[in-house]
């Protein structure tokens, strides 16, 4: 980061490209300047602004865990100008990165508790950082359950990780696809995420739930959690909004007086319920 100009990005080289799902890719990025890389740190939950030089910046969470040093990862879906430009890049190309921005999942507060991760579709990336982080500190937590669903099998991201998590005896992984999204060989669950959550009948005692997904999934998931006794301060989510600067100046990501880039993107359900209806 040159001098004190907060708008200048770090330069990153793409080390690895993984095609997760149709139009969804993960980049593993390493700092071009190793010194900067060594001094860089972040915590699970934070995001960055990623530059496709010539096109602009796009906002994605940092999808890797701070426990894994030397690189950061981001996962994005090709949807517009900048993401299309990023999607056309390959190993060895340069991407800009500004960050880390935003608040963090308060992982230390969860030590000694059970964790229930619930994610849908392209919303697994913002959770993957905190899932990895917690799995890398596995003995600090009691039970860990991961419930992940997508529209169809093809849309499931992090297929490698899902295998890894499935094979861990200390993780209860439940994967589901929407009815109709399964292939004949599918052995996982079939049903919308909130439905499967109900089926799992999660225990809320001493448990933290972390939820991320499309608005429709969130809408039907929260009542299920409530049904099983999860309090509003035991449920966490991560929100997104249109962002540009990432540090609370450009004025566009606010929901009421709350800046998603500064006071978020991580919020408890209690905080979310206090937000005015403009997101």
């Amino acid at each position, binding site marked *: 980061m*040159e001098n004190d100009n*907060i708008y200048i*990005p770090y330069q990153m080289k793409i080390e690895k490209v993984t095609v997760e799902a149709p139009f969804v890719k993960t980049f593993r990025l390493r700092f071009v300047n190793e010194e900067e890389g060594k001094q860089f740190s972040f915590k699970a939950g934070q995001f960055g602004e990623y530059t496709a*030089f010539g096109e602009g910046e796009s906002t994605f969470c940092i999808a890797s865990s701070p426990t894994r040093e030397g690189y950061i990862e981001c996962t994005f879906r090709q949807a517009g100008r900048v993401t299309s430009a990023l999607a056309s890049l390959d190993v060895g190309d340069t991407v800009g990165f500004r960050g880390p921005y935003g608040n963090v999942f308060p992982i230390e507060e969860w030590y000694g508790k059970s964790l229930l991760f619930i994610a849908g579709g392209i919303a697994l990336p913002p959770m993957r950082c905190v899932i990895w982080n917690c799995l890398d500190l596995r003995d600090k937590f009691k039970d860990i359950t991961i419930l992940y669903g997508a529209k169809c099998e093809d849309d499931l991201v992090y297929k490698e990780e899902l295998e890894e998590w499935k094979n861990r005896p200390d993780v209860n992984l439940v994967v589901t696809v929407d009815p109709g999204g399964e292939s004949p060989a599918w052995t996982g669950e079939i049903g919308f995420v909130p439905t499967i959550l109900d089926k799992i009948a999660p225990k809320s005692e001493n448990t933290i739930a972390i939820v991320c997904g499309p608005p429709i999934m969130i809408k039907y998931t929260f009542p299920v959690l409530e049904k099983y006794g999860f309090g509003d301060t035991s449920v966490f989510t991560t929100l997104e909004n*249109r962002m540009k600067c990432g540090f609370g*100046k450009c004025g*566009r990501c606010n929901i009421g007086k709350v800046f998603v880039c500064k006071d978020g993107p991580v919020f408890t359900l209690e905080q979310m319920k206090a937000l005015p209806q403009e*997101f």
Partner: protein
Amino acid sequence: METEKRSLSKASLATLIEQLNGNGAVVIGPQKKDNLVVFEPLHTLAEMTDEYIATTQSPKDVAFPKIERLFNYHVTQFFVDQEAPVKNYPEVVLIGARPCDAAGFDSLTAIFTWDTKDTLYMERLALTTLIGMSCSSHDANCFCTSVNGHPGSTHGSDILLTRMGKGDFIAEIVTEKGKALYDKYAGLFGPDSGEDKTKYLTEVPVKFDVAETVKKATGMFEHPIWLEQSLRCIGCGACAYVCPTCACFDIQDESAGSNGHRVRCWDSCGFGLFTLHTSGHNPREVQSQRWRQRVLHKFSYMPDRLSLVGCVGCGRCSRACPVDMNLSEHMVSIAEA
């Protein structure tokens, strides 16, 4: 520091402007341009006009220009060469900003320096000396006194001039920066004439109690008043762009081949595109939601987060608005709702 009073004759002001120019400062002052009065580089006092309540645009672009280059880049096959812009910001002396304009910089500074520091803004502001001009008249759009301002307020000015009728000026040296300029040109200033500036100031009636209105507005998120007030709003950015406290911006990459640069440019929460997600979802789909954002940002969120009201009552938004959205009128109806 304690404000010091001096006097400045018209002739001396003329000399000051010439000498400032001669010493390499960029002097900016209000000038007539067809039907408008605009802040432009000023070379002589003769170019300056005093026939204005407020200029059309605020002087915020001395520190927050409509386009600011953030950095340049050059893309090759193997790397990207980034280069911070060469910062040769000029030394600026802004003459003729009204007390509301001077106070406007508070809001910008609060936004650009809270948490992370926008050094581009800070450095430009640091190089700007503000010689304000108090107000001997006002119009129906002014409401500085409703938002903690005053036609003779020294707040935000480094030196405040008050014109005594059509003649010479009372000069108040307000800040260290003002003192530094005064010290350099002390010969042009005379001693305190003993005149009281109050008799040369206009009186701006208070239209609403800002503290009460802020409290009221904060509880009105779901109120039908936003639709009522914004029916005639056509969603342009005129109000935001002429406003001395509006700081919302966009960041854009502009490139030609392998060379390019990133700029920060003015943006407005009134535009439909402002909060549009790539998915097509827009949290503020209709104009009434965007109008609500404009008002609450200035009169609720900023007071809450930055402890100041994001409005100085200059009335420019109302004057510039093509459809006569009158902010003080709207604030009064919020206060009375």
